[in-house]
Every structure is written in C-alpha cells, then in structure tokens.
C-alpha cells in the first residue's frame, strides 16, 4: 500500500468535580475503588487553598501600598498548584516552578515569606532551606524545564525513586527550551512531569494567538509522551492526573505531560492592566469557575463545611498572613557584601579588590599604585 496512516492519536480530557461542585464518584476513585482523595484530605487542602488565596490578595495590596515590588498574582490557579503539589512526595520529589504556583511550593516546605522576600527584591527569598526540594522562582519563560529534566536525569542515573515536576504556562510552550526539554526527557526517559498551567493568557496574548494547535496537551504527542488535558480548576482531576504521571515516572515509565486548563483571574502582574486587552465577560465567566467556590460547594454538599467554619477559617487566615508579612518585612537589611561573597565559592582577587575599595573610592581599582595608595586609604 503506497499510502497509509502512520500515526494517529487523541487527547483525553478529565474533569471530576464540575463548577457546581458535583463530583463524578466513579472517576474520583482509583482502580481499586478507593477514593483518590479522602474527605479529611479534601478538607485540609481546601483550607490550605483559602489561606494561599488570602496571602495572594495581601501580596497584591502590599504592592499597591508600595511595600513590595511587582507581583504576579496566583489567584484562580490554586487547584492546579495544590492538586499537583499534593500528588508529589514532599522531601523526595523535586519542584521546578515558574512563578504562579506558590501553593505547591508552600506545600513542599517553602516558608511562605520567602515568596514575598523574592518580590520585595531580596535574593534571600531564593535561598531554599536545606531539605526543601525545589528551585527558586524562575523569571525568564520556559528555561526552567530543562533544569527539571537534568534533575530528573540525575535521579535516574543514581537510581533514586524520585521525580521532578516542572511548572510553566501556555505561553512557555512557544519557547525553544520547552521543546528541547520535552525531547531530552522523552529520549532519555527521565522521571519528569511537565505540568502546564494553561491560564489562557501570556500577558496580553491569548492562547489562540500563541499557538495554532487545538490543545497544549497534544504537543506532547510529538515527543511520544503520555499526555492529558484536565480541568485545572478541579482539585480532583488535577490530583488524579498528577498522581498517575508522578507514579508512572517513579516506576520507570518516563515523562508525562499534563495540561491544566485554568484561568488567570488577576492581571499578569501588578504592573499590568488586563482590562486593556481582556474582555470583561470572559473574566466573569471564569470567576464562576473559581476552584475555591466549587470545592466549597462540594464540601457543603457533603455536610463537611458550613458558613461558621468558613468564618472561622477566614479569621484564622488573617493572623497567618500578618505573620508571613511580618517575617518578610522584619528581616534585617541585606548586606552588600553578599553580592561579592556569593558570586563564586571563593572570592577572586580582582573582585576582592572591588569589594574592599570600590564603595569608598573611585580609585578602588588601583589602591596599590604608587603615589595613589595614600590617597585611596585617606578616602
């Protein structure tokens, strides 16, 4: 037969909890019939979600009141971060984020004030504590996925049962590094999960203008990678798909791709005004799909939640956020010496000279020059 089909494929979509809080009981179970998330887990995750939203709103206010620099709100994407983060093993699996999945990072042990420190212009927000398995926020788009592949590769080389999960947006899948990372991951079958938060907007460019493909998930097909599109505002779907992908990777099944369809309810960052390019009706439509609202409806429907409990949670979130802000604002000023001391493990001589003299003397470069030494020391 001179002409035949050599490749066909399709992409599944998974939703378990719809926007009205209705759960598909069958899909919410594992193959053995056990719920993928027990009630107490859902309760815990919901409360964590509310706290993360509270911090996100306060972070926005900190910027508006001049107490913090530019900040990219996470609002609306909490289910994607928490569902996937919860599926990974804390202290074992490695998170490689961009900057709109704070909740996953907190869940894996990053002190909450670190994120504020980062956006307050302080590198100590990137000084990931020992034992916390994650890289700092990554500002350039799409570059971090290759790091995740390298980390996962190291796990595979050392035969450790660990997985790397990397986060990025729909826009990042236009970057060359995305394709190189996907290709390396699949060629070398490393334990890496690619988690795309398709929030529909890359600053002002909508997904439809960003790519001609119908879904983001199908891009993984070209790399022979298991792929799925999930409702990214559905904690259950995100968690189930993530768990499957992570455990497949852990068992030696190689990388997977997850497209979590979600929505950026806020501006790109505090420096952006989405009203310039985004239709108000679209925003309203997505506000109705807010992951917090549907999870609360679900819990209320199961008599696991009430207005009283919500008030108590909101009340508890306030002092928590105050403490986080206090920790970020209360830290001592950074030392200028740090920028010299952390350039290399050992300070090179020329840099040591700059550290010693440049701040106080324009002659800092040549304190040893005969005739000028005395002057330099005097200054």
């Amino acid at each position, binding site marked *: 037969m001179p002409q035949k089909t050599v490749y066909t494929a399709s992409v599944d979509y998974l939703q378990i909890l719809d926007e009205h809080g209705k759960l598909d009981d069958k899909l919410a179970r594992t193959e053995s019939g056990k719920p993928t998330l027990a009630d107490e887990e859902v309760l815990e995750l919901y409360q964590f979600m509310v706290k993360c939203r509270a911090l996100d709103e306060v972070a926005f206010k900190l910027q508006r009141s001049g107490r913090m620099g530019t900040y990219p709100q996470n609002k609306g994407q909490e289910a994607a971060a928490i569902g996937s983060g919860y599926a990974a093993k804390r202290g074992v699996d490695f998170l490689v984020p961009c900057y709109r999945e704070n909740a996953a990072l907190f869940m894996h042990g990053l002190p909450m004030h670190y994120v504020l420190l980062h956006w307050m212009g302080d590198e100590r927000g*990137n000084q990931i504590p020992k034992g916390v398995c994650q890289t700092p926020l990554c500002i350039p788009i799409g570059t971090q996925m290759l*790091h995740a592949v390298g980390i996962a590769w190291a796990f595979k080389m050392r035969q450790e049962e660990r997985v790397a999960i990397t986060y990025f947006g729909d826009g990042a899948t236009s970057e060359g590094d995305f394709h190189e990372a996907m290709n390396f991951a699949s060629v070398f079958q490393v334990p890496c999960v690619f988690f795309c938060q398709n929030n529909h907007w890359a600053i002002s460019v909508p997904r439809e203008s960003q790519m001609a493909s119908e879904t983001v998930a199908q891009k993984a097909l070209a790399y022979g990678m298991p792929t799925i599109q999930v409702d990214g505002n559905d904690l259950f779907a995100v968690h189930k798909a993530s768990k499957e992908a992570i455990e497949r990777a852990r068992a030696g099944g190689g990388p997977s791709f997850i497209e979590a369809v979600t929505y950026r309810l806020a501006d790109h960052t505090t420096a952006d005004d989405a009203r310039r390019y985004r239709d108000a009706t679209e925003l309203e439509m997505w506000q109705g799909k807010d992951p917090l609202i549907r999870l609360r409806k679900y819990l209320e429907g199961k008599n696991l939640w009430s207005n009283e409990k919500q008030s108590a949670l909101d009340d508890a979130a306030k002092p928590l956020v105050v403490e986080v802000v206090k920790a970020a604002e209360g830290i001592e000023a950074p030392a200028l010496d740090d920028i010299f001391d*952390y350039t290399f493990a050992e300070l090179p001589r020329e840099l040591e000279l700059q550290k010693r003299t440049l701040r106080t003397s324009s002659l800092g470069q040549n304190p040893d020059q005969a005739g000028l030494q005395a002057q330099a020391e005097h200054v």
Partner: protein
Amino acid sequence: MPRTDQINQKGLTLVDAINEALVQEMERDPRVVILGEDVGLNGGVFRVTEGLQAKFGAGRVIDTPLAESGIMGTAVGLAMAGMRPVPEIQFEGFLGPAYDQLVNHAARYRTRSRGAITIPLTVRVPVGGGIHAPELHSDSPEAIYAHHPGIKVVMPCTPYDAKGLLASAIRDPDPVIFFEPKRVYRSYREQVPEEEYLIPIGEAKVVSEGTDLTVITWGASVFQCLEALDKLPEDVSVELIDMRTIYPIDLDTIVNSVQKTGRCVIVHEAPKTSGFGAEISSLIQEHCFLQLEAPVQRVAGFDTVMPYYKLELEYLPDATRIEEAVTQCLAY
C-alpha cells in the same frame, strides 16, 4: 586512549591530554558525566572523547539530541542535583543557543540563591581559527563570557596546562567554560605526566622571562607569539605571558611583569574592540601607570566578521604583525 609507548616518546597532543584528564576525572569521581553532540559513539568530532563511552558506558558518556540549549540546560539541572556534568558544545560558534542557560542560569545561581544552589559544571568548547573550518567554526568569544559575573573562563594552549586545568575545572564548585584552541589540538606535542595533577584556575604562566617588554596572550596565539619572538634581535629581552585563565584574571603576574618592563603588547584572535585585551590594557594603566614607557599595544582580530578560511590567516594575528608591534613599542 591508552597511552602507547609511541605516544609517550613523542608526547601528548592537546587532544590526548584533555582525553586523559577526562578519563582520570571520571575514574576519580562517579558524579562526572559527559554529554554533547557526537561525544559518545563517535568520540567527538575532534576525537577528544575517543574511547570514553566504551570505557565508562553510554550512561556516563552521553550522545544527546542536537540542541545546545538542551545540553547546557540539562547540564545545569544535573549540576543542581549533585552531578558534575561536563557538557561539550561542538564549536564556539554554536554557543549562541546555549548562551541563555550558561549566562542567565549557570552563572547566576549561586548568587541568586545566596549559595543554596550551586552549578559545578565545566563546558568544553573548541575555539578559535586557523583550521580551514566552515563558517561559525573559528570565532573567539572569550571576552563575552569573561564579562558575565559568576563564570570562570579558561583557555589553555599546551597539553600539560590543559590536563591540569581541566581537572581543576571539573573539581571547581562553580561553572567553568573551558576553551580548547582547535588550531593546537594536534599541532604540538609535549611530555605530560601520566599521573593526575592540578593547575590552579586563575594563574597565568610566564612562558619566557624578559626585561624589555611584556607580551600577554592566550590560546593558539601563544605559538604565533613564540614565532615572533624568534625573529627579534638577540639582545631584545621579551617576557611572554600565557594567561591560561581569562577570568578570574591573574592581575599579579601582569602587574609584576609590566612594572618591570614598562612596555606591553597584548595579542588575541578575538576582535580588538571590547576584546579581553581592552580589559588587560585598562588594568595596566590602573596599576602600572607610573612605570609605563609606551602606550600599551594590541594585536588582535579586526572588528569584522571572522572571514571564511581563504582569508582567515590574514585576519588572525601572525608572527609578522606581532613582531612589528613589539618593535614599535620598544622604539617608542
């Protein structure tokens, strides 16, 4: 790869010495892995990694897909996770796609994480002209990388120095770009100790001592300088310095020499403007102003695109241009 008696008699080439350093570092430290295009089965396009895959396996000497950013970016991740990757970029002209990962990630991570994450990787890159290669196979971009804080730039030109410096680079806790002057790969042999040894990064070498003038150079140009020095009258005493490391710069060796001689000619293949010679020249005027007897001279590539190879020997500094500059500087 095994040192035959014949090789021992004639000495090692630059290629042999680098290969030997890689073998010894891989034997010493299981965290060392090599990755790049054609580095495995084929032993590298210059055969620098010849025999390594057979010896250490395809899991440690890895043929990667053809993607420089992918090579550098995964090497960054490997380093983050505690490995000691030694990626190879096949030619310096193909560093462009890897630049972002090297400069914006590898070089910045220690600082931006305040020491929580470090990137001990050594990227090996054949560099420079003179081998009749195609386009974008002959450039000298060392100054670009020296300009970026957080990365060390090494460019040895002899087999002995290359072996000791590569071992130091692989053991270094920070990213190192290790440039290998491809013009010298097989054109020069010397006796190299079989046992491992280290040459510290950041130390220049005084190739020949002198009192009248200092010539500062690195890479393949060292050999053009030696040729030029041979042409000078016997009563002229020139001190020749091979930088070996571009950054961190060995200020002391430069300053001590120029304070003694009062005259200096800097030679490099890279374009003159903003070449690393400009930085050295500036440091000399900062530190040796009162001892200078003549303006510092530079013999460099021109501020043009590196020509195709029919013109490359006219572009690259040769013994005639170097000798002329030395003579003029002495006469000033």
